[in-house]
Structures are given as structure tokens and as C-alpha cells.
């Protein structure tokens, strides 16, 4: 229901029906109260219209019971709205473990999309139906927002950190993609399409023109920048921590705290290495800010991730789908 009403966008994701059902409830309450108040006032205005200038109505004694009733009942209704809304919001905010990651970079005024397999797209996102997808997004300049009305979800895209939005498309088709945080002159033009395809069609699309997976590009960068000089991959002790088998684990820091070895931490270590130093190591890693682009960072992250076999990684449920504040604590 709802998918053919011209008042609602198509329901094309797993969460869309939940959002629409919530809206039906809100609409019902809203219509009930609007109509109720409208007709009550209309009725009173007619029934008690002034018939002579000298009539003097008897003041009503304020009734505490009535006041309490019409405070508590609406409050109860709003609490239902809150709890129901919060529950839908939890689902919207938490990508499932099996969500496939795709990187998105927003910049004035286009969306650059990077599939793990290496496919790149501009202003278009091709995804297979029935597969949950998690977008890790960052901006090169100002704040943008990735919005797909048919999926009923959006998230701001910020410079300097990653944010996430996820959806599981349920219906093949072509859906609007809008930037929905004003970002300058061509904000209205920072739009595109999400193509949801049948799985075989998606495979076919994927195999046309991939230029190497993200991880393999990352491996090339790792060599270009000679990271292995300090981060020996062989297990021999080096000036920097050993990177294999670290992804997803908690790492102890020199200042006594610890941090999860995740995409945010890897990115921070590349761009601002002094922020968090692993225990037992010196703060000597140089920064690569300005030497690597955001795409390069993504490629390096994927390569470093690939050094930890999937089975060895702790469950992704702990990974915050809503962005942790990327802290550069010392």
C-alpha cells in the first residue's frame, strides 16, 4: 500500500513501508484533532453566536480534571509517536552486518561514488535489489546531504569525517537522488539517480569497465609511499605497528586510552598521525595530508582492511552507523 498513491513516493527500500506506516498513524492523529477542533469551534461559534449586545455569559469555572485530561491524553499519544519513531530511527541508523559498503564523496556540485570492486560513478549509484548497502560518505568542501526519497532516508555529508547512510532496496527501478543540504550555486543540480537492478543485471554492469578493486589500488599506494618501511607486513618488529590482523580490534594507545582500529582511525592515522599513538611506539609517522586525495585514503583503508581476514574481524555491530565524532584526541 502507498506505492501507487501520487501523494507518496514509491516505497523502494526495506524501511520505506515502516516510515509510511508511522506517517499514517501521525496523519490519523493529526486529522482527528484538526477536524475535531475545527468542528467544535464551528459548532460553538454558531450555537453560541451573539444574539444581543447585552447578553452576559456566565464564566466557566476552570476544570482541573479537564486540563489534566487534555494534557495527559495528548502526551500519551506523543509518547507513542516518540517511541515508534525512535524504533524506526534505530533501524534507519544501524546498518546490518551484511551491508555492503560503498564510498561516496560529495563535492560542489557532484556525487562521486566508489564501489569496492573499483567501479566509479558520478551522480549515479547502481545497486542490486535485495542487498543492503551502506554508504560511507565524506565531503571535499561544504556540508551536503545524500537523500533518496524512495528509500526514506538521508544523511548529511561532512568535511573532515565520515558519515553513514544505509538502505536495502526492495524494488528494481530508477529513483531520484537529491543533495539536501544547501551547498552553493548548483545545489539544485547536485542530483542524480539510483539504479536498483536485478542481481544478474548488476553483475553484468559491474564487470564492464572496472579498473581494479579499491584494495588493489590501495596496495599500489602502500608501495608508492613506502609505508612498509615502518609497517613491516612480515611480522618483524618495525618503527610502526604491524597492520595485518588489526582491523576491528581495540588498540591500546600511548596515553593510556584505547581506540577501535576502524576506518576513521586509519584515516586519521594517515592524515594526522600524532593524534593517537599506539602504545610502545614513538610519534614519528609523518603526515600524508596533501599527498593523498580522499579517494586514495579510501583505497588505502580498503587495502589495510584486506590484511585482516574477514573471519578474524570482530562483528561489525559495534561499528557506529551514526558517526562517532572523529576525535583527534592526543
Amino acid at each position, binding site marked *: 500500500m502507498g506505492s501507487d498513491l501520487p501523494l507518496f513516493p514509491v516505497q523502494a527500500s526495506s524501511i520505506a513501508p515502516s516510515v509510511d506506516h508511522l506517517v499514517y498513524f501521525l496523519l490519523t492523529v*493529526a486529522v482527528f484533532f484538526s477536524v475535531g477542533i475545527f468542528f467544535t469551534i464551528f459548532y460553538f461559534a454558531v450555537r453560541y453566536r451573539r444574539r444581543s449586545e447585552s447578553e452576559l455569559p456566565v*464564566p466557566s469555572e476552570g476544570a482541573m480534571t479537564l486540563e489534566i485530561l487534555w494534557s495527559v491524553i495528548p502526551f500519551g499519544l506523543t509518547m507513542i*509517536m516518540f517511541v515508534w519513531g525512535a524504533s524506526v530511527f534505530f533501524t534507519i541508523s544501524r546498518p546490518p552486518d551484511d551491508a555492503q559498503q560503498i564510498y561516496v564523496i560529495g563535492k560542489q556540485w557532484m556525487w562521486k561514488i566508489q564501489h569496492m570492486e573499483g567501479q566509479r560513478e558520478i551522480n549515479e549509484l547502481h545497486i542490486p535489489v535485495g542487498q543492503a548497502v551502506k554508504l560511507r560518505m565524506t565531503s571535499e568542501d561544504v556540508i551536503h546531504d545524500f537523500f533518496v*526519497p524512495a528509500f526514506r532516508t538521508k544523511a548529511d555529508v561532512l568535511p573532515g569525517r565520515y558519515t553513514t547512510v544505509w538502505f536495502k532496496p526492495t524494488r528494481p527501478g530508477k529513483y531520484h537522488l537529491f543533495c539536501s543540504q*544547501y551547498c552553493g550555486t548548483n545545489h539544485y543540480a547536485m542530483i542524480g539517480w539510483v539504479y536498483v537492478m536485478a542481481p544478474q543485471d548488476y553483475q553484468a554492469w559491474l564487470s564492464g569497465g572496472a579498473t581494479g578493486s579499491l584494495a588493489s589500488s590501495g596496495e599500489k599506494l602502500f608501495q608508492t609511499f613506502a609505508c612498509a618501511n615502518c609497517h613491516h607486513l612480515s611480522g618483524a618488529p618495525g618503527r610502526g605497528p604491524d597492520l595485518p590482523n588489526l582491523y576491528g580490534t581495540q588498540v591500546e594507545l600511548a596515553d593510556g586510552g584505547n581506540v577501535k582500529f576502524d576506518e576513521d582511525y586509519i584515516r586519521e592515522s594517515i592524515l594526522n598521525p600524532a593524534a593517537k599513538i599506539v602504545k610502545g611506539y614513538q610519534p614519528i609517522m609523518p603526515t600524508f595530508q596533501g599527498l593523498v586525495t580522499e579517494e586514495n585514503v579510501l583505497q588505502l583503508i580498503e587495502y589495510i582492511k584486506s590484511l585482516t581476514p574477514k573471519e578474524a574481524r570482530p562483528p561489525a555491530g559495534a561499528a557506529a552507523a551514526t558517526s562517532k565524532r572523529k576525535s583527534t584526541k592526543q
Partner: protein
Amino acid sequence: MITEAVQERENYLNTSHGIKSWLLTKDHKRIALLYLHTITFFFFLGGIFATLIRLELLTPKGSLVSADTYSKLFTLHGVIMVFFFLIPSIPATLGNFFLPMMIGAKDLAFPRINLLSWYLLVIGGCFAMYAMLAGGVDTGWTFYVPYSSNYSNTYVIATGLGIFIAGFSSILTGLNFIVTVHRMRAPGMTWFRLPLFVWSNYATALIQVLGTPVIAITLVLLICERTLHIGVFDPARGGDPVLFQHLFWFYSHPAVYIMVLPGLGVISELVSVFAKKPVFGYKVVAFSSVAIAVLGFLVWGHHMFVSGQSVYAGLVFSFLSYFVAIPSAIKVFNWTATLHKGSISYATPMLYAFGFIGLFTVGGLTGLFVACLGVDVHVHDTYFVIAHFHYIMVGGTIMAYLGGLHYWWPKMSGRMYPEAWAKLSALVIYLGFNLTFFPQFILGYLGMPRRYWTYPDEFQVLHVMSTAGASVLAVGYLMPLVYFMWSLRYGRIAGPNPWGATGLEWQTPSPPPAHNFEETPVVTTEAYDYAALAAMEEAKVG
């Protein structure tokens, strides 16, 4: 009953002449009229921007102006309407004029600061006009960084300074009102005998005083970021662009209550007079104004559900946002109950009150949608939000303002406005308003984003409906401009109390004398005591 001779009687309008006597006045009533002229100017200026926006949006592709110009149009529409029209509107005109009279005072506590407030609004407005004429500003009225700090090539600083200065106008008005209500009430005017209009202006003043300084410092930081690159919002230095949003909305959410609370106070007055009954549940309604002011400070994060703030912050803000809805709902129920067994007149102010209650209810109920986390993710930054706040600000505040203006016009000017024309324009405004903004709810849910110069073809029908409504609305607003001015010369002379209202301001001649009261009133009756009023009238006649 009232003869032409009354017009020769000394009152605040004719007690002195010449431009100096107006520009250097200390009389709160004259200052109210100075404000009336200023905000009317800004209203129509903001309205021109709205007209251009709606005309541009008739077609899916750009047709009237360039994309850059369009960005400037919606920015200036927001800046002018929020900071230079809505925030001052009711408090600076009707509040300034009537708050002292309602409490039995000769003037506000600080008349010269009151005049300063007006000058600050005008000076701030000059900065904004300069920005507009020199090339405009294109950041949106919300000025989000990094766009406004590092990327926009428009007059952000001039506009920011204009808002900063206007903010001090607002702070000083609030300060003046708070001190006045505490210290200048006539003997016998206890807190719980105050008209509800005073309560709501008092609650508004609390917000003005506590909230506005925060946007002031936010603008200072923005200007420093833009000129000196201090880095406080710049990720490259370790700064956080979302911090700007927290600081901005910490004021700008309570600001919406600055804009609507005085309107709620006007409606309480109108419903009481035109039903000839005290407002049902006086104390509850009085406290609900203060509750809205307090709770309004706790919900700013509901503008930021998708900003990257944590899920848990979202939960807290959503929960509290539902809380703040309840006092407003209580008011609507109490007004409705006031009508029960009342003696209801259909005079124009009452028509505006009816319109207000309907539209404010719709606006408030749609607030429940945006407060709902699961729904807001979808409708955030779409036309749904635009429709929601215009229902409250235009369907609510502006209707209350017009209702109050019509109600108090005889007192301020000594003349009646033409009733038939006024009723007609109220109807035109009501219909035009709904046609303009109801389709925007649908547009928003369908996914039409805010601040878009062009849009997909399938949205055109709804946009055309909205623009059609806007043209009707424009006619509706022009009508009072014309007939109010007409009434100053040709309107029927009004007596002291054409509506049969309680309240000290109606115990004076129309227009009132410069010092409000011949001698300080002593209050012995409760608020809205129509029986006492009737007895007093009888005693006079008999």
C-alpha cells in the same frame, strides 16, 4: 455618542508635532508606531522576495532569475522575515503600545532604551539593506559553515552585522518588558490579574534575553572565521562545522517561540473579548506560556537529527520536542472551551482568531511529524518543513498580528477600520494561505528538497497551486494596507471601548492621552471580569 470634538482632545498623537518629536520621543505609544512603520516596510520587502521565489518556481527549469540570484532571494526572504519582521512584530508594536497600559503604568521602565531599541532595528536593517543592494547574500538564513565561512562570495559579514545589531534591539526590548512587568504594575494589579497578553510577552521577553546573545556570539565567531580564519569551525584546524549548528539553533529554535508566543497572547485576548468570557483555565494558560519559553531552550537538536549528531542526542531532543508541544495544545483546548456558552461575535479580529486556531493547530500537529525521528529523516530539508513553519509563522503569527492590529486599531488611531472590507480580506488571506502552503506538505513528502532553483517535472502541478495561492495571499495582505490608511481619515470615530473589553487600556479615551491615565488606576477586579465591566458601565449611565 462621541462627537467630533473628541478629535480635538489632547492625545499622544497631537500632543507635539514635528519630526523631532517623533524621532526623539520617549512615549512607548509613539515608539510602537515607529516600529509599526518599520516592520510593515520589512514585511512587504520580504514579501517581494517571496513573490519572486514563487514566480520562479512556476516552472521546473529556471525562468525568471539565475541560480545565484535565486539563492539570494530565499536567503534574504528568510533573513528579513525572521529577524526584521517576525521577531520584532507583535512585541515591538502591540506589546510596546499596550503592555504598559494593560498593567496601569505610564510607560515602560526604560523609555529611552525603548527608543534605542527602535534605532538599533533600523540600523541593523540598514546593514541588511546594504548587503541586499550591494549584491546580496546566498547562504540561506541559517548560514551553515563551511559554506558561509569559507566558500560564499557574498555579503555574509554585512548581513551578519545587521542581524547582530537587530539582535540587540530584541534583547533590550525583552529586558525592558521583564523589568516593566516586575516593577511597574499599578496597585492591585497582581500577577494573576494580568491580561494573558502580558504573560505571553513576558515569557517572550525571557527568551529574548537569554537566547539572543547566543546568536550574537555565533555571528561574531562566524565573522571571525570568515575574516581571520580562526579555525573554530574548520575541520582542517581541528574545528567542527556541526558546532556552528548547535550554537545557531540554540538561539534559533527558541526564536520561533519569540515569534509565536506573543501571537498566542493576542489570541487569548481576542477569544475572551469576542466570546465575552474569561479565558478558560487562566492560570494554566498563563503558565503554559512560561513552560513553552523554558522548554523551548531544550529542543534545538531536532533541527540536527541527520547532521551527524549521535543517535542518543536525537532521542533526547525528540522526546523533549514532544514535551514542548503539550503547552501549545493546552492553549488550543482552553480557547475552544472558552467559546462554550459564550456570546460569540464575528467581528474581524475574531475571524482572525478562528483562522489562527485552525492553522496553528495544523502547523503544530505537523510539528509532531518533524519531531518524530523516523519521519524527520525523510522530510528534513524538504518542503514539508517549509510548510510546517509557514503554517505557524504565517498562518499563526501573522494572522494573530493582523487580528491584534484590527482589535487595537480603534484604540491606537481613534478610528474604526471598514468592517466589510476587513472581513473580506481575512477570508482572502485564509484561503490564499491554505492554497499556498498545503500543497507544500505533499511536495515535501514526495521528496522536493528546499532551496532548489529547479525541480523534476512531476512536482510542477503542486508548485503551480502554491504560486496561485501566493498571489491570492498577496492580495489579501495588500487590502489592510490600503484600508487602514483610508481609515485614518475616513474611518468612523471610535469610542473608548468599541468592543466591550475588560483591560485597563479600554478605560482610556481613543486615542489615549500621552500619559495613558489621568491618575494611576487601582485594580480591584480579576482579569476578564465582564460582569464587573457591565456593572461599571451601568453605574456610569445610571
